[in-house]
């Protein structure tokens, strides 16, 4: 069976990988390719295939204001039968359920499956859509014995991600198409312009003759006819005072200057408007040329004009057209950039920022803001983009939903609200009219962003410096904008929720950091039940009580949900407070019995409590109604530690017994909650046997793989209970090193020296030692320098090194929040150096700190 571990971290890791793979492709077919390649691998699927129409409908540039907003491409709505495998490997065999599953996913536009195949594979079908509607179906097939994550909610998330990727792909296609179209238009226009000039050059010519002082001596018939004039009307007058010119003082002055220049021997040529009969103005290409006699004296001036009104109009149109196209291109690019920024966003905050900074450019507006309703939908919080004067922006940070503002109205009606000019603004939205006027905003619009379930999740506000009617083209562009933003808001909300829950769970259920335990390596896993959102009652706690001893406690509170989480918090606090003042685990449980009198929610909690001597591996333990700890020997054989048993907390009388055992080098102790061994309708010893077999099978792995292997083998898919498991591995002294960097940078050298000594003792060759020490030094230096920016007291940085199976694993953990982006400058080299000398370098930031894991194969003696 494919496994659903429900592990939040794994989910988020997978999700991140998937999102990254889907981000690259620049076409919808490319997205499909990514799905059968990297996405399939990230999901752990065995096989993947993308079905689509025999040919994807062309991505038309219809969302952009370039044309009359063509119809949406014909969506293959009820044409599931017409879907064919486009990329990947379709199911073979006549009995396959794949075609039916594909049809179902396509028709219902919902994730279909998991459905078992006759051959044992499990299939999940995910409907694919872009901004215009359904375009196909992706199928992922999981091998019967695979470990692929297969929780339905994951695939809903994936579907959303795919839809967004497809829309991005479509936008890339639009952009590519637009570029090609612009190029062709330009070629066509240039050709027609050349033709036009040829025609016009043979046409209508006005010619005249002036004396050098500008007096008109003669004009040709064409010029006189065009002006409705007779020679007597103009001949003998200064040329600039004639009917053609005497309609504008500027034009006249320009002509006088040209006459003066020509009289001095210099010709003029310029485009100018002259008056014809009936007052009509035309533009002429005007020339004034001096004519010298044989002695070189200027005797005449020859004015001539060619009617170029049509040419001018053509030029203006061409310019306008090019401007329009430029704008369309810029807007397409802005939409593309916004989609990219939104794709990279991992929180609502990121999404909102991207929107207010880029939305205006997408539709050619001067200003954009975003309004998000608060929980009770009475007030909207505004986030203003750049371009609004500070004092006005300060007045508009929140707005009651029921005021007459475009934003409030769009939120209430879920429809686009428009005020195309100042008059409309003043009439319909008097509240904001004065501020709009002061900010120079002459048109306002508000576009609702509709999320899942038809609820308006946000409103995009837009404003222009000039009146702006809501044309169909603009409407199409707004719809595209709202769709892109809507998907991002929805996805970001999911991220937010996951993150909040993960943080809440970690804060309540997991200790913030692990104690420093010498050769003891401590690893824990917590899996929530069924849904990642169900808060369970499983918990663990571990801390050192003095230099040589550590206490581990792991338990299961009755109940579920926030109530249980609160009890867990109280129990953990109680354990921590009591552990130092009691002589051992049995006594600690006795004290917890007393504690539950004050916190009745803790009655019937089961707890296992272990006190472990770090140097010797001696352990004392006691179980209050809890499954026994499992000891896993170096050779993989297992022992249940069945001593020290008593009833659950709150229902015991008298001192609780404890027992002792010893953890030898190479051995592991595993504490767990009953979700690991209990299955409905199954005897408990079957569960214990399964756990022991899984422990044996995975004993050769490192800690993470050891625990994951056990969980995969023991926790049923869609587990009904949550699960907590904690393992302590006592390494041979030679295999394990753990040192702390204290007091920041001055402590780095001591930690490096510890590592160097340990590596030399292992027998690593000197060059390798230098390189590994360098990598560790860089990682620790980075942690010291970056981890504690918010908190100036340097916290601890923990360096752990483990040698197992010919591979050295180094981890450097800090417990401060790293700056999200690496510090600029030469310090950035650190990571590069680590990557150069180690085989593998992985950075895992989390809310509580950052962990760097590095691996390198190494030859050592013995």
């Amino acid at each position: 069976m494919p496994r659903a571990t429900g592990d939040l971290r794994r989910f988020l890791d997978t999700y991140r990988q998937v999102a990254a793979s889907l981000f690259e492709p620049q076409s919808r077919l490319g997205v499909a390719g990514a799905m059968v390649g990297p996405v399939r691998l990230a999901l752990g699927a065995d096989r993947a295939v993308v079905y689509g129409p025999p040919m994807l409908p062309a991505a038309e540039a219809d969302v952009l204001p370039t044309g009359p907003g063509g119809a949406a491409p014909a969506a293959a709505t009820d044409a599931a039968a017409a879907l064919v495998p486009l990329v990947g490997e379709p199911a073979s065999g006549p009995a396959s359920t794949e075609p039916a599953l594909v049809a179902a996913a396509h028709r219902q536009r919902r994730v279909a499956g998991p459905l078992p195949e006759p051959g044992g594979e499990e299939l999940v079908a995910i409907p694919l859509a872009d901004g215009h509607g359904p375009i196909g179906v992706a199928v992922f097939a999981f091998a019967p014995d695979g470990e692929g994550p297969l929780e339905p909610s994951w695939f809903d998330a994936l579907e959303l991600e795919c839809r967004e990727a497809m829309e991005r792909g479509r936008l890339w296609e639009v952009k590519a198409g637009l570029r090609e179209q612009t190029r062709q238009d330009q070629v066509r226009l240039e050709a027609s312009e050349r033709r036009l000039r040829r025609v016009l050059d043979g046409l209508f010519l006005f010619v005249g003759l002036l004396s050098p002082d500008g007096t008109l001596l003669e004009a040709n018939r064409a010029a006189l006819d065009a002006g409705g004039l007779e020679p007597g009307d103009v001949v003998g007058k200064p040329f600039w005072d004639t009917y053609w010119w005497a309609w504008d003082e500027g034009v006249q002055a320009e002509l006088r200057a040209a006459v003066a220049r020509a009289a001095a021997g210099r010709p003029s040529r310029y485009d100018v408007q002259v008056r014809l009969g009936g007052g009509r103005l035309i533009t002429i290409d005007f020339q004034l040329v001096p004519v010298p006699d044989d002695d070189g004296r200027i005797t005449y001036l020859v004015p001539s004009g060619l009617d170029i009104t049509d040419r001018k109009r053509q030029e203006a149109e061409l310019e306008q057209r090019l401007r329009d196209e430029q704008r369309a291109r810029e807007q397409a690019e802005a939409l593309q950039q916004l989609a990219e920024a939104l794709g990279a966003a991992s929180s609502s905050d990121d999404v909102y920022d991207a929107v207010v900074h880029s939305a205006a450019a997408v539709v050619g507006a001067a200003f954009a803001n975003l309004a998000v309703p608060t929980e009770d939908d009475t007030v909207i919080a505004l986030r203003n983009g750049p371009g609004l004067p500070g004092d006005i922006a300060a007045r508009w940070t929140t707005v009651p939903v029921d005021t007459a503002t475009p934003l409030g109205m769009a939120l209430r009606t879920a429809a686009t609200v428009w005020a195309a000019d100042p008059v409309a603004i003043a009439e319909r939205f008097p509240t904001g009219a004065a501020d709009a006027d002061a900010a120079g905003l002459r048109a306002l619009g508000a576009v609702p962003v509709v999320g899942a379930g038809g609820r308006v999740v946000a409103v995009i506000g837009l404003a222009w410096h000039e009146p702006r009617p809501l044309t169909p083209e603009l409407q199409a562009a707004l719809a595209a904008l709202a769709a892109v933003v809507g998907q991002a808001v929805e996805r970001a909300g999911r991220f937010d929720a996951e993150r909040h829950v993960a943080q809440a769970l970690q804060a309540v259920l997991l200790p913030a950091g692990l104690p420093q335990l010498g050769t003891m390596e401590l690893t824990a896993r917590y899996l929530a039940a069924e849904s990642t959102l169900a808060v369970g009652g499983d918990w663990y706690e571990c801390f050192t009580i003095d230099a040589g001893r550590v206490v581990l406690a792991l338990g299961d509170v009755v109940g579920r949900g926030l109530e249980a989480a609160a009890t867990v918090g109280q129990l953990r606090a109680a354990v921590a407070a009591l552990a130092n003042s009691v002589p051992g685990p049995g006594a600690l449980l006795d004290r917890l019995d007393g504690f539950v009198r004050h916190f009745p929610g803790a009655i019937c909690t089961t707890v296992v409590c272990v006190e472990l001597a770090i140097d010797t591996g001696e352990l004392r333990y006691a179980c209050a109604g809890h499954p026994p700890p499992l000891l896993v020997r170096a050779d993989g054989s297992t022992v249940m530690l069945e001593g020290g048993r008593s009833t659950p907390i709150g229902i015991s009388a008298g001192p609780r017994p404890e027992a002792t055992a010893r953890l030898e080098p190479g051995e592991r102790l595993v504490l767990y909650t009953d979700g690991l061994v209990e299955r409905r309708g199954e005897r408990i010893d079957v569960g214990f046997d399964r756990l022991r077999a899984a422990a044996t099978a995975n004993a050769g792995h490192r800690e993470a793989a050891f625990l994951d292997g056990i969980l995969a083998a023991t926790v049923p898919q869609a587990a009904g209970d949550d699960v907590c498991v904690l393992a302590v591995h006592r390494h041979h002294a030679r295999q394990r090193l753990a040192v702390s960097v204290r007091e920041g940078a001055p402590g780095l050298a001591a930690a490096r020296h510890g590592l160097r000594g340990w590596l030399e003792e292992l027998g690593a060759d000197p060059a390798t030692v230098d390189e590994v020490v360098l990598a560790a030094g860089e990682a620790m230096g980075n942690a010291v320098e970056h981890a504690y920016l918010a908190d100036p007291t340097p916290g601890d940085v923990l360096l752990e090194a483990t040698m197992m199976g010919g591979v050295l694993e180094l981890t450097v953990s800090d417990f401060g929040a790293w700056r999200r982006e690496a510090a600029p400058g030469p310090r950035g080299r650190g990571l590069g150096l680590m990557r150069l000398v180690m085989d593998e370098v992985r950075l895992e930031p989390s809310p509580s700190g950052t962990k760097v894991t590095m691996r390198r194969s190494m030859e050592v003696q013995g």
Partner: protein
Amino acid sequence: MNELLQMASVERNGSVVWDVEGEIDLASAPAFERQVSDSGAEGRAVVVDLGRVRYLDSAGLASLVRLHLQLDQRGSKLKVVVADGSVARSTITLAALDQVIAVFASLDGALAA
């Protein structure tokens, strides 16, 4: 003086020569950088012999880059001596810093250049 790092300078052939021993990391790099920087004067090369440095990381590399730029601006010049096979040599080579900074295998070579 930082225990991590010992450094002493002598004057040779009109150049300042720093003999550096120990470890250059986040903690000791600032002192290293300051001392070398203070010794640079116009027309006088600064030779830094890192042959006996047992540890050099990106904090130290960053100092070298800054020193190189600073001294260059003052009409001086930074020359780094790292014997073949030394720890500093391999770090500098790894980071490809030898393409930026004048690196020599021996002190004599650096003084002659």
